[in-house]
C-alpha cells in the first residue's frame, strides 16, 4: 500500500508536530507518522525562557496549548520558577504575586511540598489547610489518576466546598489558590473550579510522565486535525530515495510505504528514542566486538550523517569497544552524549529535501521551545520546497516567512 503526500514528518513530538502544523499552514500536504510516546510526553509543562520566539512559533505554540511569555509557575520540587511560558493549564503566579495573596493548599501527595513553596516562593504565598483527599489511596495514586477523579462534577463540587471553607478559616483575604497536580492541567476544569470557589484556582507543574505530557498529546491531536495534517500511526523504519525517482523519498513503515517530496525527521534524541546509544560491546565484556563503529545510530535508516560539535562522528573506542568515559557525560558540560545528532544547516537541512528537527539535531539544547522552533523552521523550509516543486498551491502560501538565521 502506498499513499501520496508532499511532506512526510516522522515523529509526533513537539518538533514533529510543529513542523507538520507549520508546513500545513504554509500550504503543503502533510502526513505525520506517529510512532507513539517519546520525550515530549515526559514534559513537565514549563517552557524555559530563551530568545524571543517568532510569530510563526508563537502561533503554533498557541495551537499546542502553550502560553508563551514571562510567567512564574510552581514546580513539584517545591520552588516558584520564572519561566518563558507554560502549559495553559498551569497557574501563572507572576501577576498574582505582585500584590495579591495566593493560598498554597497543603496536601499529602508525593512530590507536593506546600510548605517548601511557601518558604521559597515569596511573601505572597500562604499555606492553606484544606482536605483534598477523599479516599486513603489518594495519597499515592499517580497524578493523572488523581486528576481523573475530578472528572466527576460531584467530586469537583465537594472539593470546592472544602476549599471555600478553608478560605473562610484562613483569617486573611486570599485572592487565588495554588493546588497540587490534581486537575490534569485542564484549563476548562480549573475555570469551573474557580467559578465554584469564587477566586482563580490552578495547578503547579507535574512530574515527568504526568499530566503535562498527556495534555500535550491531546492538544497536539486537536491542532493536527484542525491544520488538516493526516496522521499515520506506526514506526518508520527507513527513508530512502524512491525507486526510479531520485527526487522523491519513500518512507517505509512496518506495514506500508509513504511517498514524499520532502521529509522532516523529528524522531527525538536519546530520551525520545530517535537516537540509540549502541556500543559494540552492549552486553558489557562479552567477546571482542565484531567491528569497531560509532556508538550511536539513528533508529531510522536514513541518508543522514550523525555528528557532534559540527563534525561527523568518529569511531571512539579501542579494539575492546567503546570507552564511554571518553565520549559521554560529563567530562565537560557539552560532552558527546548531549550533543550527538544529525548534522544539518540552520534551517534543519540534512540532505536534499530531507530535514531534521528537535532533539535529533546535533549540538542543540534540549528544550521544548528550541524543539518547537527547529520544527517550525524545518516545516516551513520543507513547505517552500515542495510547494515550489509541485506548484499545486497558491503563491501566497509559498511566500511563507523565511526562517530566521
Amino acid at each position, binding site marked *: 500500500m502506498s499513499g501520496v503526500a508532499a511532506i512526510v514528518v516522522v515523529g509526533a513530538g513537539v518538533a514533529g508536530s510543529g513542523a507538520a502544523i507549520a508546513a500545513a499552514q504554509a500550504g503543503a500536504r502533510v502526513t505525520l507518522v506517529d510512532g507513539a510516546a517519546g520525550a515530549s510526553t515526559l514534559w*513537565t509543562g514549563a517552557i524555559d525562557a530563551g530568545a524571543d520566539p517568532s510569530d510563526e512559533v508563537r502561533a503554533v505554540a498557541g495551537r499546542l496549548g502553550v502560553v508563551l511569555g514571562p510567567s512564574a509557575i510552581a514546580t513539584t520540587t517545591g*520552588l516558584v520558577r520564572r519561566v518563558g511560558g507554560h502549559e495553559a493549564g498551569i497557574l501563572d503566579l507572576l501577576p498574582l504575586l505582585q500584590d495579591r495573596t495566593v493560598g498554597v493548599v497543603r496536601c499529602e501527595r508525593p*512530590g507536593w*511540598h506546600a510548605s517548601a513553596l511557601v518558604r*521559597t516562593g515569596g511573601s505572597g504565598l500562604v499555606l492553606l489547610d484544606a482536605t483534598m483527599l477523599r479516599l486513603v489511596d489518594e495519597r499515592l495514586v499517580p497524578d493523572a489518576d488523581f486528576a481523573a477523579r475530578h472528572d466527576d462534577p460531584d467530586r469537583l463540587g465537594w472539593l470546592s466546598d472544602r476549599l471555600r471553607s478553608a478560605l473562610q478559616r484562613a483569617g486573611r483575604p486570599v485572592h487565588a489558590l495554588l493546588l497540587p497536580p490534581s486537575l490534569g492541567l485542564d484549563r476548562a476544569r480549573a475555570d469551573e473550579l474557580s467559578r465554584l470557589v469564587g477566586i482563580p484556582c490552578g495547578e503547579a507543574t507535574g512530574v*515527568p510522565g504526568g499530566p503535562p505530557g498527556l495534555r500535550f498529546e491531546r492538544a497536539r491531536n486537536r491542532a493536527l486535525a484542525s491544520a488538516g495534517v493526516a496522521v499515520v500511526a506506526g514506526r518508520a523504519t527507513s527513508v530512502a530515495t524512491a525507486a526510479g525517482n531520485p527526487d522523491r523519498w519513500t518512507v517505509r513503515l512496518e506495514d506500508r510505504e509513504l511517498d514524499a517530496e520532502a521529509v522532516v525527521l523529528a524522531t527525538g534524541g*536519546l530520551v525520545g528514542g530517535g537516537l540509540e546509544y549502541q556500543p559494540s560491546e552492549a552486553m558489557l565484556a562479552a567477546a571482542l566486538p565484531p567491528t569497531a563503529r560509532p556508538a550511536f545510530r539513528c533508529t531510522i535508516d536514513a541518508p543522514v550523517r550523525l555528528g557532534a560539535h559540527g563534525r561527523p562522528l568518529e569511531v571512539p573506542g579501542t579494539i575492546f569497544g567503546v570507552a*564511554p568515559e571518553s565520549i559521554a557525560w560529563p567530562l565537560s558540560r557539552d560532552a558527546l552524549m*548531549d550533543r550527538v545528532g544529525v548534522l544539518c544547516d540552520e534551517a534543519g537541512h540534512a540532505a536534499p529535501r530531507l530535514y531534521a528537527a528537535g532533539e535529533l539535531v546535533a549540538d542543540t539544547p*534540549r528544550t521544548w521551545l528550541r524543539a518547537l522552533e527547529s520544527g517550525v523552521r524545518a516545516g516551513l523550509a520543507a513547505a517552500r520546497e515542495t510547494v515550489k516543486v509541485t506548484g499545486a498551491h497558491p503563491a501566497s502560501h509559498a511566500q511563507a516567512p523565511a526562517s530566521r538565521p
Partner: protein
Amino acid sequence: VPDDPAPSLRPPDAIMAISPGPAPTDVFDVAVIGGGVNGTGVARDLSLRGLRVVVFERNDLAFGASGNSSGMIHGGVRYLSQSPHVTETSCRDSGYIQHIAPHLLFRMPFLMPIKTGLKGRIAIELIDAYFRAYDDYQPLKRGEPHCRLDASDMSRLEPGLTGSLLGGITFDEWGIDGARLCTLNALDAIEHGARVHTHTTVESVTRAPPAPDGDPVRYVVEGRDLLTQEVVRAAAHVVVNATGAWSPVTASLGGLPQARVRVRPGKGIHVVLDRRLTNYGILSEAIDGRQIFLEPWQNVSILGTTDDDYYGDLDDVRATSEEVRYLVQGVARVFPSVRTARAIGTYAGVRPTLYAYGKPEDALSREHEIVDHAADGSPGVYSMIGGKLASYRIFSQELSDLTSQKDFDLSTPCATHTRPLPGGERVPDALELAQKHGITPVAARRVVYRHGARALRILERTARHPSEKDVTCPCEPVLEAEVRHVVRHELARTVHDVARRTRLGYGACGGMRCAARCGQIVAEERGLPPHEAFALARDFVERQATTRVVAMGPEQARQEALTLAHLRASMGIER
C-alpha cells in the same frame, strides 16, 4: 598561610614563624586529621576516654576507602595460614562490631563454586580443610561453620550458576555500610565532646609557641572550610594523621618526611547492579586468576573488586570501562546473567596498603601500623598506616592506648567494644514503626537499618511535622525527615553527603527524582538561597553521571539522558 614560608613539625629551631594571625581560641587534647573509619574510630575511642578531640576531614566522612569498600566486616580468612592471630583478632573484632551496631550488619553467606576436573577434585579437599580451620574462629563473630556442597546443591541455591561444577564451599561473612559506620563513630565522638569539621582541608600543622606554664598545647592545626572558605584553627597536644592514602601528603603539610608514612595506594573499583541478583555472595576468578565476587548488598548487587597501583588524583578516583569489563567478564564465567543485568553505577576507592617494593598488589600485607613521629623530632604526632575496614576498631584502640598512656598518662580502658554506637542500643521493630507512623514498611526497614534505635527520633519528627513523611528519594526510599535529620545531626552539608549517609540518589534513577528536592532541603536547613540548592543537586547528579557512565549500556544511556534532561528542566538550565 602566606606569611609562613615553612610551616613544619621539625624541631623548634627550624621554625621561623609561629601560627600567624590571632591565637587559636579552641584548645583540644588531640587533633585527628582524616574522617575515614580510622580517624573517626580514634576520635570516638579518645572521646570515650574523656579527651577533647577535634577532627578535620578534607571531603566528607567516609569519602575515601572507608565509604568505597566491598561493604564487609570479614574475618580475615586469607590470613589464616600465615598469621592465625590476625584472623582471630579480625573475627573477635567483627563480633564486637556486631555487638555495638547490631542494626548495621547483615549476614552475607558466600558460595565458592569449584569446577570439575582433577584440579577441582584436589582443590575442594584443600579448601574444605582450610575452612574447617576457619570454622574454629566463626563463633567469635556469630558465623555459621562452612558447608561442602555438591553440584545439585549449588544449582538449587543459585540457579544462575553455570559451568560444570564439581560442587562448592560456603562460608559466612557479615555485610556492613562503611559510610554509616564512619558516621556513627563521628557522631558518638561528637556526643562525647569532640568537634568534627567536614569539608575542611588542613593547610598546615605548626608547633605552638612554647609555654612556660607547662601548657600542654604543642601543635596548631590550621584548616580551611572548602564550602565557606573560613579558616578553622585548633590547638592540640597530640596530632593523629589518619588520612589513609593521603597520609604522605598530610605528613608533608607538617614538614615530616613522606618516606616515613609511605603507603602503596591500591585502587579498587566496584560495579553496582540495580537489584539483588543472588541470595549469596559468589566468588569467581578473573582473567588473571584473582579472586573477585558478586554479592547481594543492601538492596543492590555489587561486583568487586580490582586492586591496582594508583598514581592519580586521590580526590577524584573513578572506575574506568576497562576495569568494569574485567569484573563483568570474570564474574560472567560462573554467573553469565551478570552481563545482561543493569549496571547503575560504579564506585572506586584507594586502599592505603603498607608500602613494599617488588610485590604484586594482591601479595601486599593488609596489616596496619602506627608510626610514632617522635623519632622525626615531633613527639605526640602519629600516623595510622594501612589497615582495613574490618580492623578499624582494634587499630583505633591500639593508637588510643598508646597516646593516652604516653602523652596523657591516662589509664582509662578502651570502651569502644562494649559501648554501643549511636542507635545500636537496640533494634526497633520496623513493622511496628511503619504502622505507628503511617509509612511504608520498606521505608521503615531502611530507616531502622541505617539508624537503629535513632529511627524513633526521626519518625517522631514526622508526628510533629507530617509533611516530613514525604518520600524524598523513592528508590531507597528516604523520607524527608531523615534528610533533615542527617543535615542537622550527622554533619551532612551537600546532597552528596546526604547520599553517603542515607543512600539517597544511589538507586536506579540516579537522582532524577530526588536530587533537586534534596538540594532544596539541604539549602533550607543550611540557610542558603534557592539557587544554591540547584547547584548542590547538579554537583551530585553530574558527579554520579561520571561514575555511571563507565558501566553504561544503551538502557542506562537513555536513563542518564532522561535524568539530566529532567534536572535541567526542573532547574531551568538549557544544557
